[in-house]
């Protein structure tokens, strides 16, 4: 027989003022199954908790209902007390007599009556409650970091530094990401590569980090603590074991006119190439699409010149499966394609470039060795117009959100330009300047006040090319309220930040949700900004939303901290509010499987002793189930139930209100 203890808290005057706590306790005493019912001034105090513990022991209670404040407040407190007294904590429930009753009603009899109902509901529930035990899942203490940009590198280094293994997967042949392409960084103007490359090398050499460049994730199975990830290592055609990185191959490669991705197509590379001189690993790959040997079957020069015989034309893509306990997604961003803006030349005007292209022009290692020359004819640009919010904050043709970093990098571009072309004119069109951040506003002010950049508030309506090859930029100065027309050698568009192409495909693989643009969704926008709704998958950097470098790094370190926290114990303990399938009555209609937001329900084959398939049923993976119960409500045969909120418990609650 159920032996339920009822404990009514006065919460000082908070409950007692409007609810007659003694009357509630007395009424509850008459509920079937209640063997003890008392009221007390402060149930959450030590003596109050002791009262519950004593009753659990003395009265051999099989359930406890505490009528007090919201369970959000003290449920953990009372459940701990129950546990300490030897009662399974899930046999304790709270009735919310304060937030839901005494604080919102004034009439004492009415509030008392409602309190009695609330108590009855929980008493009826607790009588049906089952003992639940925390779920333990083993954890594979290896992390997978997807993306070798600054966020991925940082996360990998932090996790590795914490003593755990990391597999770092990068799609391109080298670590570094976008940051490696930048000339200087705002607001300090320190050299991007100078601060990044040591970290790249550190990552490559760290004993806890396994680097997988030129590789992509193709499949993700499993769940928190126990993921199985398939990684496709693309054929490099160069044996990394043999290659010394001497460079003889790409110096001799005859296929030379291939636009360099790294230089944003402002420079060229060979078919066998390394993306940039500081690449990590510093070993070339062959671009099979452009390699004469691989496309036409003749050439073979690189193999001839390679002193170590590292060239392997018969190399093949390989798939490896890695087992990891956590995944950090740091896939970064891409720039929006401004060809949608016809009035800006729709991408056809050579001298209308984007921010990355300007970075490469300004970079000492870039195609112009740092001189700001026009792509069309290589002349030094005497006048440059920078246009902010290109695609950003334009719900009609671009994206509605603010890309956040463009104000800053445009100011940086203007400053860099003025440093390099002292007499040059730098004009910035802006909608408004958003420079929240340490030293950021000062930096923009410096561009305007010290470095002589001309800031014009307004939109550019048209850019066209004059006969002399220079560009005419027509717009409006909305502060002055007049049209402006500026002749420029070059226009730099601050294109919107968008997710990497294929971001949604990866999200689907991971089971991570994403917004309508393809940015990955955090589990909670305020309190869980690093986690995703998929347990064990964390976010770092601009794959979640536009971010600058320090933010990306901060989030990467946060993700690493989450991973290390997860790996700090051999097993994962989770609240046992999970769904359970009745395999006897399940008819495998798969409604639950389709409805589960977490992909936590799978097929399970039931076989006889000889291994013959008898039937297939649904099976909940306790590691993945988050306990929402959506599956329960779609199951027509009542074959799936949610621990902690079982059908029987809920029906008992409803019946208590009859």
């Amino acid at each position: 027989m159920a032996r339920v203890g009822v404990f009514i808290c006065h919460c000082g005057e908070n409950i007692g003022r409007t609810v007659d706590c003694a009357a509630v306790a007395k009424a509850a005493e008459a509920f079937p199954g209640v063997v003890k019912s008392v009221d007390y001034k402060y149930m959450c105090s030590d003596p109050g908790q002791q009262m519950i513990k004593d009753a659990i022991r003395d009265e051999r209670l099989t359930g406890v209902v505490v009528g007090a404040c919201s369970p959000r407040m003290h449920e953990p407190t009372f459940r701990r007390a129950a546990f300490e007294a030897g009662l399974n904590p899930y046999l304790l429930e709270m009735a919310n007599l304060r937030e839901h009753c005494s604080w919102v009603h004034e009439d004492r009899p009415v509030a008392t009556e409602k309190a009695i109902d609330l108590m009855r509901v929980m008493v009826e529930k607790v009588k049906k409650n089952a003992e639940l035990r925390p779920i333990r899942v083993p954890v594979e203490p290896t992390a997978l970091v997807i993306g070798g940009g600054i966020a991925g590198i940082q996360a990998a280094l932090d996790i590795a530094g914490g003593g755990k293994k990391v597999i770092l997967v990068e799609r391109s042949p080298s670590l570094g990401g976008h940051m490696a392409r930048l000339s200087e960084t705002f607001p300090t103007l320190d050299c991007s590569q100078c601060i990044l490359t040591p970290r790249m090398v550190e990552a490559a050499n760290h004993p806890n980090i396994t680097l997988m460049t030129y590789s992509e994730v193709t499949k993700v199975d499993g769940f928190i603590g126990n993921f199985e990830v398939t990684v496709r290592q693309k054929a490099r055609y160069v044996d990394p074991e043999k290659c010394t990185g001497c460079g003889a191959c790409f110096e001799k490669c005859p296929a030379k006119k291939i636009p360099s991705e790294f230089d944003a197509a402002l420079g060229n590379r060979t078919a066998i190439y390394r993306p940039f001189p500081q690449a990590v690993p510093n070993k070339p790959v062959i671009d099979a699409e452009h390699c004469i040997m691989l496309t036409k079957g003749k050439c073979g020069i690189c193999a001839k010149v390679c002193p170590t015989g590292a060239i392997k034309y018969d190399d093949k893509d390989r798939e490896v499966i890695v087992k990891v306990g956590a995944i950090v997604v740091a896939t970064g961003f891409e720039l929006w394609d401004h060809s949608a803006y016809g009035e800006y030349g729709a991408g056809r005007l050579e001298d209308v470039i984007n921010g990355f292209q300007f970075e490469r022009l300004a970079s000492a290692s870039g195609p112009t060795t740092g001189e700001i020359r026009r792509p069309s004819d290589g002349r030094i640009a005497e006048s440059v117009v920078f246009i902010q919010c290109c695609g950003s904050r334009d719900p009609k043709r671009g994206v509605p959100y603010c890309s956040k970093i463009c104000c800053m990098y445009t100011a940086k571009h203007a400053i860099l330009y003025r440093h390099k072309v002292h007499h040059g004119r730098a004009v910035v069109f802006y909608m408004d300047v958003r420079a929240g951040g340490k030293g950021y506003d000062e930096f923009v002010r410096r561009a305007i006040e010290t470095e002589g950049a001309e800031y014009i508030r307004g939109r550019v309506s048209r850019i066209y090319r004059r006969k002399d090859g220079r560009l005419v930029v027509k717009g409006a100065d909305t502060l002055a309220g007049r049209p402006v027309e500026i002749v420029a050698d070059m226009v730099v568009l601050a294109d919107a930040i968008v997710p990497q192409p294929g971001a949604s495909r990866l999200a689907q693989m991971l089971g991570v949700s994403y917004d309508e643009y393809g940015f990955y969704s955090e589990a909670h926008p305020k309190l869980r900004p690093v986690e995703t709704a998929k347990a064990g998958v964390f976010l770092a950097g601009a794959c979640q939303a536009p971010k600058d470098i320090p933010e990306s790094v901060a989030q990467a370190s946060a993700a690493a901290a989450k991973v290390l926290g997860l790996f700090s114990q051999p097993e994962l303990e989770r609240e046992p509010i999970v769904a359970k399938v009745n395999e006897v009555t399940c008819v495998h209609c798969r409604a639950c499987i389709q409805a589960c937001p977490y992909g936590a329900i799978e097929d399970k084959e039931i076989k006889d002793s000889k291994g013959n398939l008898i039937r297939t049923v649904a099976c909940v993976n306790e590691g993945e189930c988050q306990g929402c119960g959506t599956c329960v409500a779609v199951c027509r045969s009542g074959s799936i139930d949610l621990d902690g909120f079982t059908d029987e418990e809920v029906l008992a609650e409803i019946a208590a209100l009859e």
Partner: protein
Amino acid sequence: MKILDASKLSDLADTLAGAGYRVVVPVQDGDRVRYAEWSPGATIRTDAFPVNSAKDFLFPRSEVIDRYQLDGDDFTPLEVRPPAPRTVLLAVRPCDAASLAMLDTIFNWDYEDDLYNARRAATTVVPLVCTRADAQCFCTSVGGAPDSSAGADALLHPADGGSRLILEPLTDKGKALVEAAGGALADGKAAPDAPADVPARFDPDKVRAWLADNFEADLWDLLSYACLGCGACAYACPTCHCFDMQDEATRTESVRLRNWDSCGFALFTKHAGGHNPRPDQAARWRNRVMHKFSYIPERFDLVGCTGCGRCARLCPAGMAMLEACTRIEEEARKAPAHES
């Protein structure tokens, strides 16, 4: 001879209702005809086969058979005495009247079920002789007849080409009813119409003999393919009497219900542990045939079927007892039962 105009049957119902009877008659209900308690304005239909049988009024599909007041962890038994109103089953089919013998036996063969008995004792049965039969009628194959008076307290005969009805009392209850009918009946003369011609379609003894030897016959699979395992046949059947007992409770009161049940349901015999002695529909349909044509005859010397044909008329899958029995008889002819 007590007679009345066939068109005045509703007047008779009115009179009997006025005399304190609960009058059960076949009435139009939507596109069906069913036995229902007479209410003025209803249309009596004696020309179509009702979807329910007379048992509804003696052994209702759900009834409370036990009841408790719940007091916390204890309970107080409450008396259960379902109402047993004085009832007349008027113009029911002779096959329905005949079924009562079967039910009387079941509810009294050992323990006496007074819930049933009280209603039975208060019921006067007045069947109407059938002058038409349809393809599913086979009362004559199971010892009945379209003009059978089995189970009847009085008998209504169509007469004068269907224009009149003769009411012939057979028992004291029947006589009391005639008395209660008073002016609704006239003294007079009428020529009874010939009862329907219902040819005998099979011999139940032959069927029984075959069943005794053929529990494991392959035929059962074939006979039961069409069965979808619902309870339409059992619930329509005037002699099916299987029931389930289920408790239902509020916080303050509980009742024990007796609900109709059917051996055609897969869960009927299924154990909590999963084992089912009748694992497939063939075993369940076999039980239905065996029960009516072997077990009941064996035990009570009755045929457990009155040949009303309702099961076949109402089966959504075209299962038919008549067809099964004729088929079995055919088998029996092919391979005569062992002499033993």
